[in-house]
Structures are given as C-alpha cells and as structure tokens.
C-alpha cells in the first residue's frame, strides 16, 4: 500500500508550512548556479531534482555556523550575563538526500555525550526531515561503502520517491513524518517506486579501520595529502563534521558568546596557548580528519562519522576529500601503491 502526493500539492504544502511560520530549508539555486541547502522564502525556489547533491549539507538546521549561547553587558565593574533560549522554531527540511538525513543520528551521539547540548537538542526536536530518495548518483557518491544507500531511512522522518507523471510516493518513517503528511496524500496501491542500487562499493570500512589502527605514523599520510591546502571546504560542508570554537564578540558595552564552526584542517585549530602546535603540518591534520571519521568516532560511538555523500570531494579545490583519500589508502593497504 503506497501513498502518493502530486508535486504541485507538495509545493503547496511547502507554502503552507511557510505561512504557518515554520522555517523551511531545502535545495535552492544560488549565485552562479550552485545548489545549496538554504532557508526558503517560497516553494518556487525549491529544486528537488536534476542534481546529485547540494554543495553543502543540512547541518545548519541543527548546528548553525554561528549560534549565540549567551550575552553579556558591562555595568561599571559588574558583568551581567543573560541566557539565550535555544531556538525551537519548527523547522522542516525538504529535499534532503538520505546521506544528509543519516548524519543526524550520528551527530546525536556527540551532542548528547558527556554534555547535553541544549541548543542542538532543541533544534533537533523541532526539525522534521523529508528526504528524496536518490535516483541518480555521481562518481563521488559512496553511500554504499559506509552502509547506507539511495533510500537509506536513517534520520529521515519521511521519504519521497519520484514516481512517474509528477507524483511522489511518500513513505512515512517516524511519527513526525506521519503527522506532517497526514491527510495530504492519496492512496495508490499500484505505485511502488523501485529503489536504485546506488553507487558500487568503493572500499571496505573494516579494511580502512584496520589500516588506520596500524598506520598512524605511515608516510602514506604525507604522500596522499601533500596537495591539501588546509581550507575548510570539506569540513564546513560535511553533514557530520561538528567541531566548533567558542569566542566572545562585542565591544566596551557588552557582547555575546558565540559557538562557531571550526575545522581540524586549519593550522590554528590545535595551537596551544604556549604557541606549540601538536599538529604542525597539514598531513597530520588530514590524518586527524580521516582517523576521527573512520576509527575514533566508531570506537567511541559505534557509528562511522561519514555518510558517503561525497560533498567534501566535490568541493575540494584540489580533488582530495574523503573518497579520494580513502581510495588512495585502500590502494596503499593493498600494496598497489608504494609509500615513498
């Protein structure tokens, strides 16, 4: 038994969510044609098809690039602190790819580990994620190598599958998803959208983890990552990268304490107050990113910190990113590339 919705009705529904004061985030065409997840002002901006993946991720919905955590004021010699309430605005993410949604259960571990991040949790509770199952993929997609796939349901509240003639099959995954489409769909027993196999498997995460455990000091890190320029195009657009920095911004009257995205690829990320930097060269920073995603996080939380979306590789100005790095590592592990 399938339920379907016509594309026009879906777009009307998006406008209805906006009219109700909800924040709606979806893929839009920005600037010179780049597709980015961004807040929608109207359903007409929404681009649901015709591209593989946006150049960024949906993490902004739950973990904004800049978030005020409290404000302060100077009153003579006194400092007055004021809490900032977490943002609980209802948010609907529409048109996310399954690899984006799958990052959310992975991020939940980190933000509810020894400290429960009320800002993250408030946004997470207020967010409903509607994914579109993938019917196309490119050479940088590798969801199937990390245990996901074109219609993986992890993190989705509802999933849309493109059916012929302008229809979408709607599969509710959670209660939130059921509630969102309640009364909006039409039963269509004859429609059952087939799911594509997705990209061929490109590496084995067990092999990778074994390599990472045994080759911390390998020269392969230097050889493979030599071209890395140390920007944050990979981490900032990654659905699972979650590092942040806390800074004060203000003037003589007061200001705010703010949580901003940070990246392990920046040289300054690990600089100690003494000036010493334990990760002095870029290869060590690249090693950290890969180790964190494929060994440290799985050891700690039982989940790989990567959903195979390929965004880092597509964005990398020097064609590195997780996929190309791991393929090179897999080749070294097989012995088909010699380490200098």
């Amino acid at each position: 038994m399938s339920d379907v919705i016509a594309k026009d009705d879906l777009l009307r529904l998006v406008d209805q969510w906006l009219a109700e004061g909800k924040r709606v985030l979806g893929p839009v065409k920005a600037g010179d044609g780049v597709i980015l997840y961004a807040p929608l002002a109207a359903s007409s901006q929404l681009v649901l098809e015709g591209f593989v993946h946006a150049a960024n991720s949906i993490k902004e919905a739950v973990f904004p690039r800049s978030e005020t955590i409290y404000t302060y004021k100077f009153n003579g010699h006194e400092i007055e602190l004021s809490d900032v309430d977490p943002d609980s605005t209802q948010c609907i993410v529409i048109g996310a790819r399954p690899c984006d949604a799958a990052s959310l259960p992975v991020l939940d571990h980190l933000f509810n580990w020894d400290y429960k991040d009320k800002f993250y949790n408030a946004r997470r509770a207020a967010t409903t994620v509607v994914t579109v199952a993938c019917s196309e993929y490119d050479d940088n997609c590798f969801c199937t190598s990390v245990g996901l796939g074109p219609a993986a349901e992890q993190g989705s509240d509802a999933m849309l599958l493109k059916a012929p003639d302008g229809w979408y099959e709607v599969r509710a995954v959670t209660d939130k998803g059921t509630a969102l489409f309640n009364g909006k769909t039409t039963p269509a027993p004859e429609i059952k959208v087939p799911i594509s196999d997705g990209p061929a498997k490109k590496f084995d995460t067990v092999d990778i983890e074994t390599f990472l455990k045994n080759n911390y000091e390998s020269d392969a890190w230097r050889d493979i990552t030599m071209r890395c320029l140390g920007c944050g195009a990979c981490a900032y657009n990654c659905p699972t990268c979650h590092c942040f920095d806390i800074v004060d911004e203000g003037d003589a009257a007061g200001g705010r304490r703010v949580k901003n995205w940070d990246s392990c690829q920046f040289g300054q990320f690990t600089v100690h107050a003494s000036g010493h930097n334990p990760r002095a060269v870029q290869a060590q920073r690249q090693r950290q990113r890969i180790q964190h995603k494929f060994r440290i996080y799985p050891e700690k939380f039982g989940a790989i910190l990567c959903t195979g979306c390929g965004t880092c590789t597509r964005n990398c100005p020097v064609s590195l990113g997780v996929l190309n790095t791991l393929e090179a590592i897999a080749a070294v592990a097989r012995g088909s590339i010699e380490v200098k």
Partner: protein
Amino acid sequence: MIDQLRQTCRKLLEEGAVKVVIGYGQDKPSMMPHPVFITKPEECDRLVWNDLCFANLAAYITRKEIKALGKPAVIVKGCDERALVVLEQESQFTRDGIYVIGVACTSLPASGVGNPRAAKCASCAVRTPRYADVTIGEAAVGSSAVGSSSCSTADAEFAQLDEFMKKTPAERFAYWKAELSRCVKCYACREVCPMCYCNRCIVDKNRPTAIDTSATIKGNLAWHIARAFHQAGRCVGCDECTRACPAGINLRLLNQSLAKSVERAFAYKAGMDKETPPVIGSYSLEDKENFIQ
C-alpha cells in the same frame, strides 16, 4: 605536448636540477586534474595537461611542507606565472631557487555545463608564459601569444564589472549582502590564493580579535573586505578563489573592482611585467603625495 612535458620533468629530476616537480595529475578520469608532487623520474608519467588544469600551482611554493622537499620545478600557465612575478617582487622566493616550466594554453576550456567558472580564460592576455625557464606548447592561433602590459580599462576583461558598476550603490550593497550571506568562512578562497601567504592571517588573530570570526553578515563583510584590500595591486586574476568557493560567491567581481582601480590610478597590472615596480611595496622620493616623503 604531454610527452614533451613529462620528458622535460624526467630530465630535471634525473639530472638532480630539481628535487620535486609541482604539476598536475589525474588519478582517475572522473576527477578534476589536481596538484601532484613528483620526486622520482619514473613517476613523471603521472603528469597530465589539459584545459581543466585550473589550480594555480604557484600557491605551493611558499608553503613549508613543499619547501621542505627541496628545489621545485613548478608548472605554470600564463596566468599562474603572473602570480610568480608578484611573489618574486615580494621576495617570497629567489628566481634561481625554483625552475619554472611554462605551459601554453593551446585551447580554451569549454564554458557551460560542468565548467562554469572559467570566465578568466575568455579574456586572457597571457596564454603563453613569458619568464619560464622552458615553455611547452604554443598558444592557439588567434590568441595573443604574449601578454601586453599596457593597460586598457575598456578591456573585455572588465565587461562584467562595468555592467555591475552601472547599478546604484544601494543595489550593489544589496547584491554583496546576498552573495556574502552564503559565506561560511571555510577560507578556501584564502588557501588557494598564491598571494595569501601570511604566516598568520589577520582573521586568525584572536589576542585580541581583529575581525569577527562568526559567519554573520558583519563578520563576512569584514573578512571579504579585508581579503580584497590585501589583494589590491597584487591579485593577478587567476580566479582560483572564485573556483574554490563552495558557495559560488562571485569573488572575481570584487577582485576586478580593485584591479581596475589600481590600473586607473597607477597604470599598473599585477604580475604583467617583472621590471615594473609593484604598486604596493615600492617607494619613490618623487611620489606626489607628501605623507610618504
């Protein structure tokens, strides 16, 4: 052409003239060509050359990890070579400390699908490098083989800027606010830039903070204005920042605005001529402004 390029590099490594060749490789056909660092003669077959070799490899010669490899040979297009000219004028390397392999751009990258960011090539004046130790290939017939250092502000190069400048200041500000609202401060623009070689960027100064690190409109405007000002009279228009930006921000327009101002005020185009003293970084007792005397 590729055979000649590989042969040249192989010979340089075999003879020990250089320790490393900074060139382009392409590990699989689905990838964009990317920087490679060849240290052994037998690895020179990894080198490729095609019209998608956008990366400006001059960005690597000031980096400590690359310097540690020893004397480099660097493969440059005409536009990249302009960056080397500026870097040399700014004393970032000595000319006998590197070997420059020029490659002529024999064809233009196809514009449009899959390659939307090659705007610079359409108005390029330096399709053949001019100061290289060796230059491989010949620029396509009909293109200007040797760049002119004369300054013409009516250039096709500035067509997009000229069009943009017809807008009112309020419209332009609205445009930049919208463009820069997408910036997440990943600093890809900074890292790919050969001119951004500071050991510590002003935006990373945090004791005290000079520029808000937040990716808010205020923080983003502050970063992009600071970046652009530091590029005035130095940016060679290689457009790597624009290509690298994941958010598709039109940094080219901002860079061009400064380049055009410098051309108009000083008849100077960064990196076009080795002998012309750089606008930023040269000093004259005959300067018409008193404050500098």
